[in-house]
């Protein structure tokens, strides 16, 4: 998929990644709270769910989730630094660093879970 020509530059893609990761995490929060709620009230069901998380596909999905969380966190820090501190010209490098750090963190999480 390619953006329209005037949008086809790295920092527009950084914006899209930040927006999509934010919306995805917001959509995930109800499920997350539901599972936490199981830990308090229905532990049997929680154990069943935890068994389900051993399936490779679910582990891969968890990798995606950790990536979304990390990329939103690092991307958010980049934007806050952009707005709060003196301007620095290497914005594309910062965006690339945020994405790389998020990928690294998510990969470490994936390796740890096997």
């Amino acid at each position: 998929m390619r953006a329209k020509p005037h949008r086809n530059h790295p920092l527009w893609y950084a914006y899209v990644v930040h927006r999509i990761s934010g919306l995805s995490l917001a959509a995930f929060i109800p499920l997350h709270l539901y599972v936490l709620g199981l830990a308090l009230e229905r532990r049997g069901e929680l154990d069943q769910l935890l068994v389900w998380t051993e399936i490779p596909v679910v582990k891969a999905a968890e990798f995606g989730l950790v990536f979304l969380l990390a990329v939103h966190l690092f991307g958010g820090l980049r934007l806050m630094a952009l707005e709060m501190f003196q301007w620095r010209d290497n914005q594309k490098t910062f965006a690339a660093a945020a994405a790389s750090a998020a990928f690294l963190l998510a990969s470490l999480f994936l390796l740890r879970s096997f």
Partner: protein
Amino acid sequence: MGDRSNSIRVKVSRGDDRGRHFDEFDVPALESQTVLDVVTWIQRNADPSLSYRFACRVGMCGSCAMTVNGKPRWTCRTHVSKVLQGDTLTIEPLRNLPVVKDLATDMSEFFDKWTSAESRFVPTKTREDAIEIVQPATKERIEADAAIECINCGVCYASCDAVELNPDYLGPAALNRAWTLQNDVRDGGKNSRLRAVTGEGGCQNCHSQQGCVQHCPNTLNPTRSIAGLKRLATRAVFKREL
């Protein structure tokens, strides 16, 4: 008019906001030809009814900006050889502005927003006062100098998704100009201007996508200026000045 066997296929947007379509022309390819040269050739040799706007032809007046192969550009300084895709050139009016006719946009709202952002110098001295010396090495002057060479072409405005999402957003050019004045030690309108650029449609609408930085033909950095305004606004809120 050049070698016909070596021609450019040019698709030109025609009409206005009530209805637009593309007309196609074959234009002779010439050495060092600009996109404005191509549009001018079409009007003078193929279709005199083609409407477009230009004045200086040397990148100073900011009146000839158009969308070329999907990107906003100053056409007088854009060489065809740099933007040609195959042998085709697609030329449209600037985005985010009403189209008067063909390639000419109505830039009223663009300039009205400069006024809304209070982008005019407010003098604090009279002719009886001595001329104030502005030191070029001061932090404020360096910030202002970095942003001051805007030619009002509207390229940043056309490349901005925040303008597209919120038509009330003042846009990169007006905010960039406001930032230069906030850094002018002689200016007396800073408090009022800060309120003007932080209200509805103000600097907080910017998503820092930096399309304006990507496309500004004068290599200015409106996102940097807007970030500066956001910092001023944050400081003013903490000091209860806003």
